[in-house]
């Protein structure tokens, strides 16, 4: 049962990830990316990380992807996809990536099978209560720094997106 669910989610994740880079229309790419994020959230639930699963849905599928959709809606993009003039470059990059991935996968597939050990297994680490305790004690300084980072990113985005003098349309 769990195995079937894992393989189904993995298949769907890989398929929609492929469609992200293969589809011609950027809108379709965004929608497939959202599907990928949903399958990854499913994986997080399988892995007992319920809090991260929900955060993944809210932050990635909810906020970031809406930002992408808005930008694409603003920009009125033309379809662009793989063009023949760069076929050699595409083949080269494909070869390099497949070699790299193949080597890592071969190594991992032949590595000793690793499963969780009984001795100090804790099924509650992915819950809000436990993660909140760790976040606000051990990782308090990074947490505050992230909020400063958010502020600066927000100011930066507004500054970058501001209309300059003399620009008529858009």
């Amino acid at each position, binding site marked *: 049962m769990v195995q079937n669910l894992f393989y189904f989610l*993995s298949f769907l994740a890989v398929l929609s990830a492929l469609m*992200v880079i293969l589809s011609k229309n950027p809108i379709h790419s965004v929608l497939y990316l959202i599907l990928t994020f949903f399958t990854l959230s499913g994986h997080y639930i399988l892995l007992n990380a319920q809090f991260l699963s929900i955060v993944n849905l809210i932050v990635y599928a909810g906020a970031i992807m809406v930002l992408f959709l808005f930008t694409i809606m603003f920009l009125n993009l033309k379809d662009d996809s793989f063009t023949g003039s760069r076929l050699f470059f595409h083949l080269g990059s494909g070869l390099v990536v497949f070699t790299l991935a193949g080597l890592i996968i071969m190594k991992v597939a032949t590595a000793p099978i690793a499963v969780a050990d009984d001795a100090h297994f804790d099924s509650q680490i992915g819950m809000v209560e436990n993660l909140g305790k760790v976040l606000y004690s051990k990782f308090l300084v990074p947490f505050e720094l*992230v909020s400063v980072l958010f502020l600066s990113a927000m100011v930066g985005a507004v500054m970058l997106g501001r209309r300059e003098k003399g620009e008529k349309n858009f």
Partner: protein
Amino acid sequence: MNQIPEIFRVIPVNNFVILAVVLFSIGILGVLTRRNAIIIFMSVELMLNAVNLLFVTFSSYKSDPAGQVFVFFIMAIAAAEVAVGLAIIVMIYRRIRSTDVSLLNNLKG
């Protein structure tokens, strides 16, 4: 209450690692082959998510909450990065009326 769920017995870590490697490779392929800046950006998000999956996997199998806290930070930083990156893409579009990165060759000399 604290017994190991079935998945940690029947599915080894190796399967999750392989899935993450495949997703990451698809992301690299997208960055290398596509020319639309927005699609390149989405491929970067894909790679970030592959790494997140790896973090959560090892965190869950080893019962160490630090990995999941790191994924939380990665998500926060990815959100900030997307806000700035999309603003830059909008600015590029204003200047050259396109998001094709192969048109951005002013530094080529």
